[in-house]
């Protein structure tokens, strides 16, 4: 997945018409013989190329931007694009440090002349309450967790999920409050207690609950969340959105990925080769991803 611009440029500027024609004739996946006597570019291949160039552009822009502006823009775009993208809001609000999230809120003011909370009012769905609470958080980041409170709050969540109406979870004031105000250390302790007390993880119990599950994972087990996103991106039949997620995660989590090494090898190779993939080599071999 990627574009090697340097090679592309050097090859194309050094080619003459003959050379280019033999290139076209040799790439049966990209060019097809048209009945009117020329090698026509296959439509679907153009689309793929476009996506690849876009992803490269996104990677460059995302990398260059100040993290605050980057995160503000990610959030704004996600709000605009709708429910399928709300996980990006959760991801940004929950996996950044408290000060980074604060910075994103400031950048949002400068860029969009509104607060994030205001723009979230455009969301009509029930996710709004949770999302507003998550982006407004300024979590304590020190150590020191009250284990008793963590345990009792694990119970509150358990009851909300198992005894209450699962459809009403997003409206459960206490659950949202716990997830949106407690420190990450506290929530991780809560996660452990939940597991010990109920023989399953909080994430498992939230299977199918969309952004609630994303929220819990991002706060308590971020590597699980990111691994899931990355693996979806490199699957054979991954859609364009999933592939874009790859760029986003790799750029925003680069230090974490390289440091923690919790990334499957497949992705590590791609991470290293992001700017080295030879599109032309792919053309020559007739193999495009």
């Amino acid at each position, binding site marked *: 997945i990627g574009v090697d611009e340097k090679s592309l440029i050097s090859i194309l500027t050094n080619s003459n018409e003959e050379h280019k024609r033999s290139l076209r004739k040799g790439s049966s996946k990209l060019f097809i013989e048209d009945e009117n006597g020329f090698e026509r570019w296959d439509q679907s291949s153009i689309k793929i190329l476009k996506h690849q160039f876009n992803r490269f552009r996104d990677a460059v822009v995302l990398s260059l931007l100040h993290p605050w502006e980057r995160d503000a823009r990610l959030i704004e775009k996600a709000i605009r694009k709708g429910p399928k993208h709300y996980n990006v809001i959760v991801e940004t609000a929950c996996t950044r440090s408290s000060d980074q999230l604060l910075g994103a809120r400031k950048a949002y*003011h400068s860029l969009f002349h509104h607060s994030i*909370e205001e723009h979230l009012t455009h969301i009509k769905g029930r996710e709004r309450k949770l999302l507003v609470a998550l982006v407004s*958080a300024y*979590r304590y980041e020190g150590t*020191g967790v009250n284990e008793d409170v963590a345990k009792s709050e694990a119970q509150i969540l358990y009851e909300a999920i198992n005894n209450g109406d699962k459809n009403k979870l997003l409206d459960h*004031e206490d659950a949202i*409050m716990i997830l949106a*105000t407690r420190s990450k250390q506290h929530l991780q302790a809560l996660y452990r207690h939940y597991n010990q007390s109920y023989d399953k993880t909080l994430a498992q119990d939230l299977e199918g609950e969309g952004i609630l599950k994303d929220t819990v994972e991002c706060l308590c087990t971020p590597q699980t969340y990111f691994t899931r996103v990355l693996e979806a991106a490199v699957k054979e039949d991954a859609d364009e959105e999933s592939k874009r997620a790859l760029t986003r995660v790799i750029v925003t989590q680069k230090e974490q990925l390289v440091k923690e090494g919790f990334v499957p090898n497949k992705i590590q190779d791609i991470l290293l080769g992001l700017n080295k993939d030879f599109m032309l080599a792919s053309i020559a071999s007739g193999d495009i991803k």
Partner: protein
Amino acid sequence: MATLTVPTTVPSVSEDCEQLRKAFSGWGTNEGLIIDILGHRNAEQRNLIRKTYAETYGEDLLKALDKELSNDFERLVLLWALDPAERDALLANEATKRWTSSNQVLMEIACTRSANQLLHARQAYHARYKKSLEEDVAHHTTGDFRKLLLPLVSSYRYEGEEVNMTLAKTEAKLLHEKISDKAYSDDDVIRVLATRSKAQINATLNHYKNEYGNDINKDLKADPKDEFLALLRSTVKCLVYPEKYFEKVLRLAINRRGTDEGALTRVVCTRAEVDLKIIADEYQRRNSVPLTRAIVKDTHGDYENLLLALAGHVEN
């Protein structure tokens, strides 16, 4: 406009520290000296004094003051000596520990500070209490009060002057509907008050009055005993005309049998460097008596003297 006055030539920080140290030494305390110094230094200068005092004498100035002073005067000095962000954190923390009247203090801090001042208070809260302000507010308030206060203390409002008049119309209508249905703690009401910029809220409320005839606060007076409604009305005041809010707090604090020193101390301390002049003007307009005269009438001793110093009173 601030009322705090700082001398044109300020003594050096070490001189100030030395004088303060002298004020504590020997029998009794020289309160006048404390008032002369601390009562005429701004936040930055006070921070420097505290830092230097600790470095020079190995003791926190606040601890020394705590030992030497008592009662209302001590409370005023200690609150005043703090950095505004720390002060707000302390006031907020106290408010989460007591009963309903302190919901008002939480709302006051959330709504009358600038977006960045509220942020600094939240940061100071982390440092001082090892928790987040939102956690404590969430866990010490309930029901409708929590529903309103949590978003208020978590807000980071846009501070520009831009206003969307169409939106103001829509939201004025929305508020009017909810109020007519007595749905005072409805999600939308809370959302408008807790997320919109102050300029936008102002436009919305102007439109409300134009369109429906009454100030929104008049319509929110349906039940005079309802405490949530009272908090809602105060929230509106704090957001669009804080000086009127503070004038009322002062008026109630001073005119009561006895005086509510807590409120008086809090308002003077937190506004002396911000807009106490405007509040005092409003006070005079509303009560036909200058604020300083009311303070003289109702308080005495060192407490009175420091209040007057902070309120910019000049001896005749």
